[in-house]
């Protein structure tokens, strides 16, 4: 047990992300004495009750504004994106640290206001782009920086699949309520990693299939000095869910969700090394002793520990607001420069109708 009292946590939003991710991670952290869930906030009583049954000692509140937002508290903002800015800014102003779920905000302007408030108050604001806590994505970051396999030549990304999330209403699919489709929802993770690894692209070409509504397929080409790559994101059809980066002396493939695994091919070899990623200090003993690499749940826990320690003793955030905002900035730029995605099974009348509807929605 740590030698300090557990950090109080207020959870704003008891929907699916809290039910399937935060509740389990916070539950374990409570058993370790690292955090204490102080309040659960959600206007939907039934949703709130489900989570409250796991944290009976917490306050159960319909309104976030009624939560005990005191300095030294961590607020987990897991509400719909349009609420992120107001709730985050309120929590920061009350002296809390905030872990805000992705996408950081409904608009870039909101995200910038959140980041500005974090800077003004000096309180930590972390963004829930938790894939950066994966050992696999960290290993890729190191390979890109160290050029162990030489400079980057190209990359290809395919991510997504048929939408399976249990939506409680159609608000997620309404353009007047939700600012984007699959690029905004899934792509915020995808683009965050690419921006983290490679930096901002010099130019890009973005196309999607929105025709008056929210896109289900996004195709993006990102161009950098010396290399370029393609990104295909879909909630329409099962993709391979793969990131592949080709270096001059080999390639690395990472399958989405495999937090502790990478496939490595070194130029000149006709085999692929399928690896589990362990700390070098471990010397492989963990595997020898039957323990595998850490996976997504551990990354989620690390993310919560990071914000809790930042609130307690000022430990630097792994994904502060100015990092979290980058993917949102690129997404908004993509939408502003959107072009029609060719859907090659359309007949000429459909293609014309599609172009007209997409253009009409932009004006």
């Amino acid at each position, binding site marked *: 047990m740590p030698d300090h009292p557990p950090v109080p946590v207020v959870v704003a939003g008891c929907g699916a992300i809290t039910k399937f991710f935060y509740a389990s991670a916070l539950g374990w952290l409570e058993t370790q004495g690292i955090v204490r869930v102080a309040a659960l906030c959600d206007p939907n009583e039934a949703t709130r009750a489900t989570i409250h049954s796991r944290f009976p000692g917490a306050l159960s509140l319909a309104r976030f504004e009624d939560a005990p937002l005191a300095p030294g508290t961590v607020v987990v903002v897991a509400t719909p994106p349009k609420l992120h800015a107001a709730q985050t800014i309120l929590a920061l102003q009350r002296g809390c640290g905030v872990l805000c779920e992705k996408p950081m905000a409904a608009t870039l302007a909101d995200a910038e206001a959140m980041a500005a408030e974090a800077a003004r108050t000096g309180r930590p604001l972390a963004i829930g782009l938790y894939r950066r806590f994966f050992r696999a994505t960290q290993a890729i970051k190191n390979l890109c920086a160290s050029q162990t396999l030489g400079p980057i030549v190209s990359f290809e990304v395919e991510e997504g699949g048929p939408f399976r999330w249990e939506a409680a209403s159609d608000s997620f699919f309404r353009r007047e309520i939700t600012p984007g489709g699959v690029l905004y929802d899934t792509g915020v993770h995808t683009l965050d990693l690419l921006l983290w690894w490679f930096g901002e692209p010099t130019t890009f070409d973005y196309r999607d299939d929105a025709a008056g*509504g929210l896109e289900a397929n996004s195709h993006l080409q990102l161009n950098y000095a010396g290399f370029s790559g393609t990104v295909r994101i879909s909630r329409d059809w099962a*993709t391979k869910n793969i990131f592949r980066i080709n270096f001059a002396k080999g390639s690395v493939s990472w399958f989405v969700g495999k937090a502790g695994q990478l496939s490595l091919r070194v130029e000149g070899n006709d085999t692929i090394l399928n690896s589990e990623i362990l700390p070098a200090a471990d010397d492989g003993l963990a595997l020898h002793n039957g323990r595998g690499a850490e996976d997504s749940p551990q990354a989620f826990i690390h993310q919560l520990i990071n914000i809790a320690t930042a609130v307690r003793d000022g430990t630097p955030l792994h994904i502060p607001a100015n990092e979290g905002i980058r993917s949102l900035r690129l997404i908004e730029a993509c939408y502003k420069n959107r072009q029609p995605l060719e859907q*090659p*099974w359309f007949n000429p009348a459909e293609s014309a109708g599609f172009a007209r509807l997409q253009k009409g929605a932009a004006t």
Partner: protein
Amino acid sequence: MKIAIIGASGFVGLRLVERLHLEGKAEIVPIAHAYRSLAVLARFSLPWKVADATDADALAEALKGCDAVVHAALGDASQIVTMAKALYPAAQKAGVKRIVALSSAAVHSLTPLPGTHDETAPLANQKSEYNTAKAKAELILNNARAQGTVELVQLRPSIIHGPRSRLVADIAGQLLAGNAWLVGDGSAICNAIAVDNLVDAIWLALTTPEADRQTFLVNDREVVSWRDFYTAIAASVGTDLSRVHAITPPDFKDSASEKLARLAAKETAMALMPLIPRRVKRFAKAAAAAWPEPTQPAGWCLPGGPTPKISEEMCQLQSCRWRFPTAKAEKVLGFAPALSFGDAMKRTGAWLEFTGIARKQ
């Protein structure tokens, strides 16, 4: 014309929405069974509804203000029957003028007997719960029509192919993996219909006055063998049939429950026919989730090559020697498939490329 489409997020329903909406032919009201099913439909700004198609009152509410309804929803055997029972009274209550219901050529069995000259051929003695349910659903709707005022047209497609076809995607995956198979030399008849030709047939069924109270078999214009079907898909993904296993159907002697379990476990089952039970789909998804996992070679042997997974229902389909006639659809509806099999497969190939299925990684 304002048209409601039940099952608008499915393979046929979604293509129907795309075509009619983008071509500006009609006002569309997509009806889905769950909010999550709106994910792809939401590309368009449409007045969608979420309703349980087995609940006549809920359905009637969703159909209000529509001139016609196309029923293209999936379901298990029980749901197929229940949806048919709910559909007609719902349409009647909502003041809909015409129903176009997608049935299936499976009502004649997967291996129709020679002599199935037209839609009046007796429905085969079905072992399949699904096929029986489709036949029952047709009967329920026909009986309701006899007593009601809402016009009714039923279509019986068979092997529907095109963009978003799970059957095509599965075969493409098998061809690339080396575990595709054909019964014998693949010369049996594949009663194929391109989804775009089916959409045309649906439009004719919606708009042809004389079609009321009629049922129509619909096919592509060419007679296509299963070998032709596989060859076209193989070409789309840059391979050929050289690695396709020629098999002789094994003797399927399972008990009824074993047969059902085996059917439920097959990913192909849900792709074969226009309407596949949801329960089968759930089982199949579970099986499919496990399928791509690499297997370790067993001790004291070398790993073998890809092994075909043979299903009884696909064996039956690939043993079909009878082409379903479309003379009635041609005569009454003026149905003349606009898209040739070759052109349809080119569109499907472009979709396979679009999705990444045709690209090796």
